[in-house]
């Protein structure tokens, strides 16, 4: 039974090649992030003043930057920073947002009102402006940028979870569990949460690429990762100063962000189709 339903899932997945390719590329970047020390053996922080802004060669396939550092190495190591920021910030948003949404949706009344008004106000700050404001208070670093992005993404999860709880609670199986005497918390954890998990997963595939771009933007503005740690955002900020003499410096970090976010979106679209049969 389980094997045949898994087989059906695979068949449906294979009918969406873009989603498969997207998931493959995301996996590829995960491998890059984890295997950075073995894949990019050149030290990403070591300057070589004999090799400043050299065009791509066999030794430096992506060229070198303004301090003679290997761009290939820096792009590979930058994957770690981006993945870390993207995944951890959204985990933070889920860790705060899902419990808050569960409480708001299941308790209703004054607690619900309090949480939702706070959420509305939080949502009124444009994502990036809020992240910039938070980094201003906390100081510029990768950790703070990750926390700021996570906090900025939290209200989306509160709203989504609350909405899902409200609709799920009307379902027969939840009503049945209630009627059988299951308590509030037990119903939520055993019956509601497992049924809204897929929708939360789909939302995460949308939020993670957004968070990756947000981290790159903060670092590009100088509010995220600080030099000399390689990150795609800071690399692009430097590259912009050398567009005329070293254009390759701006190709690779941008291409990396673009292909990673595009792949996440492709995989996310596929996942949504898989989990939600409504066809557009």
């Amino acid at each position, binding site marked *: 039974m389980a094997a045949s339903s898994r087989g059906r899932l695979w068949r449906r997945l294979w009918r969406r090649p873009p989603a498969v390719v997207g998931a493959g590329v995301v996996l590829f970047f995960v491998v890059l992030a984890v295997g950075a020390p073995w894949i990019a053996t050149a030290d990403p922080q070591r300057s070589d003043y004999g090799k400043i802004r050299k065009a791509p060669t066999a030794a430096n396939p992506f060229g070198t930057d303004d301090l003679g550092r290997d761009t290939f190495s820096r792009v590979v190591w930058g994957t770690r920073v981006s993945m870390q920021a993207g995944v951890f910030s959204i985990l933070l948003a889920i860790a705060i947002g899902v419990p808050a949404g569960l409480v708001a949706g299941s308790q209703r009344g004054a607690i619900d009102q309090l949480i939702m008004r706070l959420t509305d106000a939080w949502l009124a700050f444009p994502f990036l402006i809020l992240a910039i404001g938070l980094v201003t208070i906390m100081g510029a670093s990768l950790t703070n940028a990750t926390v700021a992005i996570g906090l900025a993404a939290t209200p989306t999860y509160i709203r989504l979870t609350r909405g899902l709880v409200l609709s799920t609670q009307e379902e027969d199986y939840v009503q049945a569990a209630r009627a059988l005497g299951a308590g509030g918390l037990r119903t939520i954890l055993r019956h509601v949460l497992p049924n809204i998990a897929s929708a939360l997963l789909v939302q995460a595939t949308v939020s993670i690429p957004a968070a990756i771009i947000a981290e790159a933007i903060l670092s590009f503005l100088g509010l995220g990762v600080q030099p000399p740690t390689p990150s795609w955002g800071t690399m692009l900020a430097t590259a912009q100063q050398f567009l*005329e003499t070293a254009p390759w410096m701006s190709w690779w970090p941008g291409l990396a962000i673009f292909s990673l976010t*595009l792949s996440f979106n492709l995989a996310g679209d596929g996942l949504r189709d898989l989990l939600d049969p409504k066809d557009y």
Partner: protein
Amino acid sequence: MAEFLIRRVAISVVTLFVISLIVFTGVRMIPGDPARVMGGTDADAAGLAEIRQKYGLDDPVPLQYLRWIGLALRGDLGESIRTRESVVWTVARKLPITIELAALSLLIALAIAIPAGVFSAARRNTVWDLLANAVSLCGLSVPSFWLGIMLILFLSVRLQWLPASGFVPLWESPLANLQRMIMPAFVLGAGLAAVLMRQTRNSMIEILSADYIRTAWSKGLAGRAVIFRHAFRNGLIPVVTILGLQTGALMGGAVVTEQIFVVPGFGRLIVEAVFTRDYPLVQGVVLITASAYVFINLLVDLSYSLLNPRIRIGGAAGGG
């Protein structure tokens, strides 16, 4: 209708109140003496005393909040540490530039998204639809600042068609202004175009399968007439809502775009303020942006309810 209006306005007022609380608390969380935070490192003892007096910094915190919000409501958001000019005045001077940028990018986004969305809905599942979808997915995924850098690389550095950066006021030379604004506006509009195109396509597809459209087809009306006279107007309603929600993204996007193309607007102002630790300015900009967002979405919701009578009765309930 009146009940919906009052309810919607009341929610906005509560939201604005909570926003002000968040901003007030945020600035209090900056480590150090609040008077020093508001006055800057080079403020002298008299200057600090003046700030302490103005904001009642020796009073209990709730009283401090009331004093601060009272001043803010009268348009006094303090003065910039760096220039000693009033925050409201500083923002007011920069705002027209960003509004021009946003308006241009909105025009570009609509000019791309609406025709592309309607077309791919009408030619659903053809090569054209597939192509339009692929382009919009790329538009959604491409980081705006990289798109900006690539445009500068090809259009300014390589082809030398457009100036890479700088700004000329509209009233000085409209042509020179447009030459410098068109690239940032395109960069800012590209992501928006992608979102709007998807929304237009989806809502057009939904509407084209509605009964009254099928009736129109079966009456023998020509394809174009059905699409434009019957489907288009209703299909645009959700697009208007998305547009309101996207103004936040537009404001955030302006920060990055202005930074890349050195446009001296609102977005560049906030980045400069952050770097110079100009806290009153950061506070003012954040407060103004969030309030503007609430107002715009209130207007969008109200216009939406005028377009679609159903929402006035039941749809807007829940509030969350």
